[in-house]
């Protein structure tokens, strides 16, 4: 395999460049209250209405850690097949910003709660393992609003103190497609676990993207740039593409790359330098003296392991082995917990193969068109299951089933009723079919003669005519049999 088709390379004259990408994903922990305070984490509240004395960093206020957030982080670590550290330490990351009330962010620097782990990606050309460097807990900052007033910036601290998991990958990603697959997989695992809702519109999942380039075949890493706070997969891919090309152009031009923090401008579709070098950050990390080291016992971790549901990789394996799905089908069906639940509900009482095709085909297309999630599907798993059984037992044809399906999408109606009300039941009575077929042959005498003299292709024409005359209700299998005899 000298040249892999899916390899993502940037070509310039005689040189080919490989792109090296690492991600720092910031995932909001699903919890009622904040990491170190008791105010709510709900999205969309009026400004500064979910801010406690601790969140606003009033004098003398102290952090007290939320046990649930600790559990969520450990569960996520288990989901990432990672090492759980029984002792971790909270540090202060010191810097000044309007939406950082304490003047420092409580984070974990040297001793994170979760160590090395891995994520498996399903790429078109096979599986790829991406290493996880670490996962740590930290506080989110508030929000600065710059466009409400020409002279002033407004600060909303509702988000201030909300728990985040920062998940740092190893520099194992090589293309925008892999980044897409990685973020989706990570999101899927966390949604299975219930540790992060993965809602990118609400900012529950953001990433800092580290990008560097190197000549193909080189073992050394190039100088990397960090693109801060990108909040959609599409923007991540666009930013990587722009940034990688920018770096390659610099190298080709004989210039060097500065290690720096950059910002992705979504309007101009470009990255630009965020801070001047003289203002280089020195965060002065040190252990937060208001907190003690976080210690969890083996027992604490073991109990959490019992709460871990079947995760996408295992579920996929089960679907392939038990239901004989193709890896492609299984990957799609396990992408999120709701879809796989839907699938498993449908197949409780109906044929797996048909169910798989109908869900991946018709249902996804219809939901997509209406911009609905699987949980919002007008067709319940139970009714889809009934529809599949109607096909299976020959009550309706696959073609008629599509009509029934369309009616079902208008509201959660029982497909049997639709078939009855609209008179869509398949005609499987051989006598009735014979009569129909006789009439069709009679009406097309010439073509019948041609068929008999060897124009076998015309068979399809007769099937079509019979179906047309029966308004699609004729049982195609029987039609085939009888036609063959009659002709």
């Amino acid at each position, binding site marked *: 395999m000298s040249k892999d088709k899916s390899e993502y390379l940037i070509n310039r004259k005689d040189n080919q460049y490989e792109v090296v990408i690492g991600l720092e994903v910031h995932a909001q922990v699903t919890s009622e*209250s904040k990491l170190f305070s008791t105010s709510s984490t709900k999205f969309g509240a009026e400004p*500064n209405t979910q801010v*406690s*004395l601790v969140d606003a960093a*009033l004098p003398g206020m102290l952090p007290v850690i939320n046990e649930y957030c600790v559990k969520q982080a450990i569960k996520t670590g288990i989901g990432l097949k990672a090492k759980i550290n029984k002792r971790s330490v909270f540090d202060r990351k010191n810097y000044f910003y309007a939406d950082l009330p304490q003047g420092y962010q409580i984070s974990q620097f040297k001793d994170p709660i979760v160590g090395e782990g891995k994520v498996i990606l399903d790429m078109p050309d096979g599986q790829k393992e991406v290493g996880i460097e670490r996962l740590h807990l930290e506080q989110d900052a508030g929000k600065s609003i710059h466009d409400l007033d020409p002279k002033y910036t407004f600060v909303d601290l509702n988000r201030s103190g909300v728990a985040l998991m920062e998940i740092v990958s190893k520099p194992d990603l090589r293309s925008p497609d892999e980044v897409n697959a990685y973020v989706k997989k990570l999101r899927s695992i966390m949604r299975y676990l219930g540790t992060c809702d993965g809602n990118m519109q609400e900012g529950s999942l953001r990433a800092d993207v580290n990008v560097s380039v190197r000549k193909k075949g080189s073992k050394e890493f190039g100088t990397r740039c960090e693109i801060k706070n990108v909040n959609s997969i599409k923007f991540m891919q666009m930013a990587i593409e722009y940034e990688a090309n920018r770096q390659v152009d610099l190298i080709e031009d004989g210039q060097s790359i500065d290690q720096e923090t950059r910002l992705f401008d979504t309007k101009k579709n470009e990255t630009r330098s965020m801070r001047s070098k003289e203002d280089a950050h020195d965060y002065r990390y040190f252990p937060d003296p208001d907190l*003690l080291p*976080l210690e969890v016992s083996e027992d604490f971790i073991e109990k959490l392991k019992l709460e871990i549901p079947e995760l996408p990789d295992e579920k996929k394996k089960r679907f392939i082995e038990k239901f004989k799905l193709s890896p492609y089908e299984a990957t799609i069906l396990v992408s999120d917990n709701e879809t796989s639940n839907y699938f498993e509900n449908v197949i409780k009482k109906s044929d797996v193969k048909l169910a798989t095709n109908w869900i991946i085909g018709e249902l996804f297309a219809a939901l997509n068109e209406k911009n609905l999630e699987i949980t919002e599907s007008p067709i319940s798993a139970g009714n889809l299951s009934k529809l599949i059984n109607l096909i299976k037992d020959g009550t309706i044809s696959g073609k008629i089933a599509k009509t029934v399906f369309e009616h079902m999408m208008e509201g959660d109606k029982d497909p049997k009723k639709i078939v009855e009300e609209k008179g869509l039941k398949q005609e499987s009575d051989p006598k009735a079919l014979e009569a129909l077929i006789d009439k069709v042959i009679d009406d097309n005498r010439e073509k019948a003669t041609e068929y008999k003299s060897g124009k076998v292709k015309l068979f399809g024409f007769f099937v079509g005519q019979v179906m047309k005359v029966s308004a699609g209700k004729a049982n195609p299998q029987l039609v085939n049999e009888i036609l063959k005899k009659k002709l």
Partner: protein
Amino acid sequence: MSIDLKTIKHISKLSRISVDEKKAEKLAGDLNSIFEFIEKLNELKTDNVQPLTSVAETTLKLRDDEVKSKNIREQIIKNSPQENEDYFVVPKVIE
């Protein structure tokens, strides 16, 4: 070692305290005499000593995930230097 004016300027930038030339010189003098006395620690070999970050001999206690602090916006904003009912207001941020 000696702390020069450039270092003082750097630290003042990090700590967001403005210093003029005169203040910087005074600070450099003070800090140098303080660090001269701090350097005494170098007499000790500490390679195999575990650092002590807290003397509280207990483990971190974990609290339940309950929302107890309700909307106290009025209290939170009450002491803010620039009045606004909903927000904290600061001079424009320039990146």
